[in-house]
């Protein structure tokens, strides 16, 4: 299991990268993270919601009420154009970070 401290800085782009594929709701985002990482990383519910609050505050995502199913409606989140721009900046930043860390750890570029 990955340390949540290491992943903390990338929780925002992780959620945005899920939302760029389509609108989604809280618990499904959590499940998507767990399944994409083959359960190596699972985000805590409180962490997810704190990140959602932060993304909403910065206008990177918006929310809306979905259709009622099983007697209740769900809140869906949608990435905004500002959020898309931020995600593309974070991708660039990740490439740079990865390249720097690889140099220190003697890992060749392109190593999987």
């Amino acid at each position, binding site marked *: 299991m990955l340390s949540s401290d290491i992943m903390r800085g990338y929780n925002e782009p992780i959620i945005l990268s899920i939302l760029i594929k389509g609108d989604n709701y809280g618990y499904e985002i959590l499940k998507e993270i767990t399944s994409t990482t083959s359960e190596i990383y699972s985000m*805590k*519910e*409180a962490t997810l*919601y*704190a990140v959602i609050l932060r993304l909403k505050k910065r206008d990177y995502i918006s929310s809306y009420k979905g259709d009622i199913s099983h007697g*209740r409606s769900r809140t869906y989140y949608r990435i905004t154009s500002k959020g898309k721009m931020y995600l593309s900046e974070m991708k660039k930043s990740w490439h740079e970070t990865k390249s720097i860390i690889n140099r220190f750890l003697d890992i060749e570029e392109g190593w999987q």
Partner: protein
Amino acid sequence: MRKFEEFINRKAMQFPNSDWAETQHELLEIMEDKYEDLIKSGMKSDTAIDRVISDFQDFGEIYDELENKDIRTKYDELMDTYTQKTFFTVLGMFLIPGLILVILGSIANLMNSRIILFWGLIPVCTSIAYFVYLLVKRESIKSKYEKILESKSESRLRNTQTVLICFTIASMIVIDYIVADSILIILPIPIATAVFYLIKNKVERTL
């Protein structure tokens, strides 16, 4: 589910000023989804409830986000109030005392005694005192909140602007008082400055 609502309400009591309604609803959704998922995986209802609540115990990160939001909202509201008050005081400082000075100037000419003009000092001094009070109050709120919101450099820039504008307006009042007839010529300058400052602050805050 009742138990989840009670849990969320207990947490809500710790920060009553927050915009809690939306947060509460969204958190409940996640809790209920997780509960249903655990039930589907074969867990007993009581165990699932305990598990969901225990996973949500660590509210630290959510508190941080909500508290920050509260401070930002409160700060924006206070700044808007004081900016508006300062703006209208600047307008009042020129319109009301200026008008009084013009009227007193006419009476002084009629009575051939300039001493009557000193009565004009009362509204002028009152306006200046109130304006200074508002500026001091506004700056103290700014420094208090911006320390928390970590935008000190921006605050310093705005402080310099405020001092410059204050100085310009004070100079205008002095000139206005010495040469009462000049009010119509110089009036648009401080008004334009105040409007510019007000719009600039609004724009900066929305960015």
